[in-house]
């Protein structure tokens, strides 16, 4: 299964599902996929589902930040959903919980 799946906007919500390892080797492609979907589809709410992400590096965190920025560009709210405790810890230590709607 792909590391990223982008849905179509339903009732204003765009749901993006990330899976597996999000790291430097695939971050550029994931970033492009997610940011393009946000800009093209103009949702009012963007949610990134992280429950199936087993590994995240700082490049992957950058992908999330860029998705947040793309959401702001189209005036959509942005949140990250269901990170594993390890990934949650990682987002906490990088100071992103509040920005990602997890604080």
């Amino acid at each position, binding site marked *: 299964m792909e590391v990223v799946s982008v849905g179509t906007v339903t009732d204003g919500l765009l749901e993006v599902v990330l899976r597996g390892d999000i790291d430097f*080797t695939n971050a550029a492609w994931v970033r492009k996929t997610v940011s393009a979907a946000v800009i093209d589809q103009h949702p009012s709410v963007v949610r990134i589902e992280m429950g199936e992400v087993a*590994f995240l*590096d700082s490049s992957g965190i950058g992908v999330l*930040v860029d998705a947040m*920025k793309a959401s702001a560009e189209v005036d959509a709210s942005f949140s990250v959903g269901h990170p594993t405790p390890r990934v949650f810890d990682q987002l906490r230590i990088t100071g992103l919980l509040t920005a990602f709607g997890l604080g």
Partner: protein
Amino acid sequence: MSEPGETLGLEYDFDFDTLVAARRLVERYAERHGLTEADLYRFVVAVNEITTNAVRHGGGGGRLSLWQADGRLYCRVTDNGPGLPWPDEPGHRPVPPGSSSGRGLWLARQWVNRLTIESDAEGTSVTLEATTPQSKQSNDP
């Protein structure tokens, strides 16, 4: 040339195409030497940030060495890149939430016991140290 109490480890040359393989290798080695769960994840994340930096800024790749000594686990990542002008400076402060990059070294520094950087015009060498659970529980040899 190992010190007393030091277990000879392994070495692996990596580049962009083998970054993930290098990460799996670190994970297996660390797991075999006592790291579990969150401690294991943190060590793997920290080492992965340094190997990724070597690929991005250190000439496209490098060599990682893993070994164990006195209940501690070590990983050294060396590259032949241009080196860092101020090796002690980066990664001591978190970057603002709106920044797309710059979190790697911060994360690595947070998640190991000790991280030391040596750098000159020949390249950069980063050593990461983790305490294994056995040595947390007891100071016995």
